[in-house]
């Protein structure tokens, strides 16, 4: 390799290194790293605002000096990054070869595989959107070290797209529902609409400052432990080594690039604390809703009861409430607005959504399970103040399955059109069965419904951002989507009979009081 080596008069300091060109001096690693990370320009014929327009780089537009001391603790060079990532990739491939074969997956509990399907769909292309968010910061972030770290973050997120897509692709032969790992975000499935509504704004549309606070500080630092620590421990407990390896491998990247958030937030808090608080408030609430559905289902329902280590609520209390509270205090921020509503929702929200989703399971791409007597006893212990509200609902579902033939999914399925929140796009499930917290707001003569006051407040703060987005009901009423449930599932949600969700056990539960078949009849 020739031509790239600097001329001898180029300034090199430090340890002498013999090469075939003679001896050159190189910097010690830490000295070199700072030089490289902090390499920047003084602009002579353009203004700082021309290079980093506020509309793209974000607000407040602080003077360059405010960013000059920006740093994060991992301080990784590109060479170190590539070396480490190659080793991680090799490790994931090795686990896949040993524990990711179809026979290995067939041995896992059926309900657990559906937790994997749920995550496999919501994860990969959201990570791809995060690649774009990071690349925007790699160009328009206000400090060179931030830009360099964001570039590595973009490479991380690309890896987090490719790895689950690759691993789940193998499993399509096991179950076609795994195909939604790729198809999910390309569909108009109601969960995909909700996830896109959030991630389009957070990852694709936000400027590097909002992205750093919303994604790195709130979503990744505040919540992804639920996935990457809580869920990977569930994967370990059920014996799913491949999923566990995938999650822990992703987490090791997330832990690094999430560190971008703190030093950005620190500067925004100093310059405009009200704005910093607003961004935290918004993304805390929105993130919490998504994780309640995705992780709450997996931890409290789809992981077999004998393998559960903690309830969703316990995990949130330990890993989100406690730790995030301390992080907020460290930056001088208050708890997010609607914090109390969030804490209260830990007893009800994901249970409400799960029971609702179970009775509309053909509208999703994974199968759901009726909690059995042991599950219900566990849930009663873990949620003593709220589980009693859900016993009658599951009792009704038990009765419906008892009357239905095994496998007759339609006999135990809802048919009415569901209402969706005009902000989070999720089902109107906030509150309790005795008091649903949905509320409405009229904006420019049009009535909007929200699952909660928190979602309504977010809408009212930025109506121009959200008012134009149609929810599923709006699409039906506008004639864009069919009002007939079967047509909606097939034509609009992208689900066919091979994919749409069913009961994991086809309703064949030993605890049901199903009448015995007549003597001489078919058992």
């Amino acid at each position, binding site marked *: 390799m020739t031509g790239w080596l600097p001329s001898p008069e180029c300034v090199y300091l430090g340890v002498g290194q013999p090469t075939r060109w003679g001896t050159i001096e190189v910097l010690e690693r830490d000295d070199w790293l700072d030089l490289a990370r902090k390499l920047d320009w003084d602009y002579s014929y353009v203004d700082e605002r021309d290079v980093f327009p506020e509309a793209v780089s974000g607000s407040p537009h602080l003077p360059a000096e405010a960013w000059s001391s920006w740093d994060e603790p991992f301080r990784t060079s590109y060479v170190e990054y590539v070396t480490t990532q190659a080793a991680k990739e090799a490790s994931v491939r090795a686990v896949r070869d040993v524990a990711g074969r179809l026979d290995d997956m067939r041995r896992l509990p059926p309900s657990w595989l559906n937790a994997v399907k749920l995550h496999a769909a919501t994860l990969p292309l959201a990570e791809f959107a995060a690649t774009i968010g990071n690349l925007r910061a790699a160009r328009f972030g206000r400090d060179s070290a931030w830009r360099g770290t964001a570039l590595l973050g973009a490479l991380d997120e690309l890896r987090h797209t490719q790895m689950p897509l690759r691993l789940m692709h193998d499993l399509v032969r096991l179950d076609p529902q795994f195909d939604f790992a790729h198809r999910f975000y390309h569909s108009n499935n109601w969960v995909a609409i909700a996830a896109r509504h959030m991630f389009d704004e957070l990852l694709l549309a936000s400027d590097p400052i909002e992205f750093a606070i919303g994604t790195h500080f709130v979503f990744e630092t505040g919540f992804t432990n639920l996935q990457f620590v809580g869920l990977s421990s569930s994967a370990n407990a059920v014996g799913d080594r491949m999923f566990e390896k995938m999650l822990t491998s992703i987490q090791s990247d997330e832990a690094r690039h999430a560190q971008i958030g703190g030093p950005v937030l620190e500067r925004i808090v100093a310059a405009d604390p009200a704005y910093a608080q607003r961004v935290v408030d918004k993304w805390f609430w929105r993130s919490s809703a998504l994780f309640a559905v995705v992780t709450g289902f997996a931890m409290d329902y789809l992981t077999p009861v004998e393998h559960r280590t903690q309830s969703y609520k316990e995990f949130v209390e330990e890993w989100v409430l406690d730790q995030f509270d301390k992080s907020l205090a460290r930056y001088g921020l208050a708890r997010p607005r609607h914090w109390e509503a969030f804490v209260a929702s830990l007893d009800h929200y994901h249970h409400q959504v799960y029971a609702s989703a179970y009775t509309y399971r053909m509208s999703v791409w994974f199968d759901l399970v009726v909690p059995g007597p042991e599950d219900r006893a566990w849930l009663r212990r873990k949620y003593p103040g709220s589980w009693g509200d859900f016993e009658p*609902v599951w009792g009704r579902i038990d009765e419906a399955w008892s009357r239905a033939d095994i496998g007759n999914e339609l006999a135990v399925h809802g048919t009415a059109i569901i209402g969706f929140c005009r902000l989070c796009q999720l089902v*109107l499930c906030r509150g309790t069965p005795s008091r649903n917290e*949905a509320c409405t707001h009229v904006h420019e003569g049009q009535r909007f419904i929200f699952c909660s006051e928190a979602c309504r407040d977010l809408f009212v703060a930025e109506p121009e951002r959200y008012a134009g987005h149609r929810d599923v009901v709006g699409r039906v009423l506008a004639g864009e989507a069919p009002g007939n449930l079967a047509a909606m599932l097939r034509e609009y949600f992208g689900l066919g009979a091979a994919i749409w969700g069913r009961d994991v056990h086809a309703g064949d539960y030993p605890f049901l009081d199903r009448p015995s078949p007549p003597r001489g009849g078919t058992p």
Partner: protein
Amino acid sequence: MIPLYGFLEGDTLGLLLLADETETVASLAAKLQQSSRLRVAPRDEVLVVHRGLILDPSRLVGESKLEPLERIDVIAVRPDPAGGAA
């Protein structure tokens, strides 16, 4: 038809209801109970609440000042401590 969001006491979610202006409020409540019967056992006596007020079950939807995409609640009639129902 007037699209409304219906919330049945005891249910886990809100549903879209298409109300016919010529049907009664009682019929609207029955419609919601029917839509939610998989999760909530239908009750014989219920009340329909709109903007905090109980609607007359015999009134027609068209006479009840229900506007598109408003919320209505269908709640159980609670025993009156005095002996009746409230």
